[in-house]
């Protein structure tokens, strides 16, 4: 069953400083099955964050359509929740208050249910005991856990993740990736995960969509053949590295193409 569908989405930006228009996304079509983990990789500037914002309902688009469960997306909705690259936590609220924040805004749960869910998801992301701490007292990795708990607590059908681990150091990122898979195994959401790291995409996802740069298009979609649960050792295995290399070549070729386009001859 298709959970999330984007068909023929195009997005243009007007660049005030240069006085011209740029095509950020051109005819992008994606469909994600219920419960599927889909990752999108692409060179920087390929419009992957724009695509996520469009699906989240935060950014208007020019052509095409986006739908969840067959219903057209018109702005933000309770069926989707976003985990941002910057943890975007309210600094004056405690961890408990931040996890509750999304639920509070959406007004779907009563007080008792909110308290229960807050408690459950704080424990799920491994932050039990930190309810009364403020975000400034937490490390970057812990802040991203809160960010994830806030999104999950709102009980979305689709979880949209916008390079959530990009700002973390390499070690913390690897750890967070395996943690995310454990949490996902329990929460079982449909996930769209944006990243610029190919091995992160392969390690996490069921399918990896590769996007091309300027204008952003879907270049290819790879199915990841590895079963679950996956251990971090998977990343050193030959089959994994081959897939990573194949995707890498596709992106490199793409970057080279832009180089030719951009270089005046």
């Amino acid at each position, binding site marked *: 069953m298709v959970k999330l569908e984007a068909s023929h989405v195009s997005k243009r930006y007007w660049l005030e400083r240069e006085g011209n228009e740029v095509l950020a996304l051109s005819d992008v079509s994606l469909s994600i099955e219920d419960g599927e983990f889909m990752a999108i990789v692409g060179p920087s500037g390929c419009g992957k964050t724009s695509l996520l914002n469009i699906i989240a*309902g*935060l950014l208007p688009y020019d052509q095409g359509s986006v739908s969840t469960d067959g219903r057209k997306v018109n702005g933000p909705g309770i069926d989707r929740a976003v985990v*941002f690259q910057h943890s*975007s936590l*309210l600094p*004056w609220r405690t961890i408990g208050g931040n996890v509750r*924040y*999304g639920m509070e*805004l*959406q007004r779907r749960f009563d007080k008792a249910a909110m308290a229960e869910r807050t408690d459950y998801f704080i424990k799920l992301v491994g932050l039990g005991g930190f309810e009364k701490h403020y975000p400034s007292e937490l490390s970057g990795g812990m802040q991203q856990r809160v960010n994830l708990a806030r999104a999950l607590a709102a009980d979305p059908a689709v979880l949209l993740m916008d390079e959530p681990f990009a700002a973390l150091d390499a070690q913390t990122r690897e750890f967070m990736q395996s943690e995310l898979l454990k949490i996902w195994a329990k929460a079982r959401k449909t996930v769209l995960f944006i990243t610029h790291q190919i091995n992160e995409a392969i390690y996490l996802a069921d399918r990896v969509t590769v996007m091309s740069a300027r204008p952003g298009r879907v270049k290819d979609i790879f199915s990841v053949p590895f079963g679950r649960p996956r251990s971090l050792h998977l990343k050193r295995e030959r089959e994994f590295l081959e897939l990573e290399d194949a995707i890498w070549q596709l992106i490199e070729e793409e970057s080279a193409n832009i180089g030719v386009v951009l270089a005046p001859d």
Partner: protein
Amino acid sequence: MRPKKSFYQRHEALILGGGAVAITIAIWQALWSAGKISPLFLSGPSAIVKQFDYGLTKGTLLADMRYSGTNFILGFAMALVSGVAFGIIIGWYRTARLVFDPFLNALYATPRIAMIPMIIIWFGVGMWSKVFIVFISAFFPILVNTVGGVRNMDRDLLRAARAFCASDWQIFTTLALPGAVPFILTGIRQGVALGLIGVVVGEMFGGSQGVGFMVAYGGQTFATDTLFVGVIIVAFSGILFTWLAERLERRFSRWRPER
């Protein structure tokens, strides 16, 4: 193990600072007692204490303090309520900001003392001209800081709130207002300092009561001990109110990273 600190190490600031003040007062008193200081130019500690006691028991010191205190509190309360309310409106509605900005910039740049003669024409020499001077002195810092606080909303937080379907009202109450609190408190601290100047200067300009009047009167009659009593009262009120405002600021900033 935590290293043991001597009595001196634990109270270093108090011992050095308090000691310096005590020594200064002692030297001042010694010079005064020896008759080296003309009472026309400067008073002495014992004379000031005597005058303070006289003012409290036989004079009008209590009534003056009550009068100045009332003026200050009334004016400051009005400045606080209207400054925060008006600041929120100007900070939140772009149109309101564009309309009021020229007036506010002009008024903000004008020294409030230049307006006192006008204020006395409007309100007379009674207490309401003083209340208004305190009001207008404290109003601007509170207003300007509130506007800045409301406008200072974090874009990432705004995006997150929107993604969770926040309404404008929810964004206002959960992001704009709490985010503005530290700014409003800074405005309050600045407003306290300027309001105190306002009450003293206002009373110097006209009328016949209050601590400000006492200072001006003491000066005009070469009663330096009376003058000093007034100055010391103003100084201590300043320290007290600033301390209260700082405590309030700290109370609302527990979530800030420790510096």
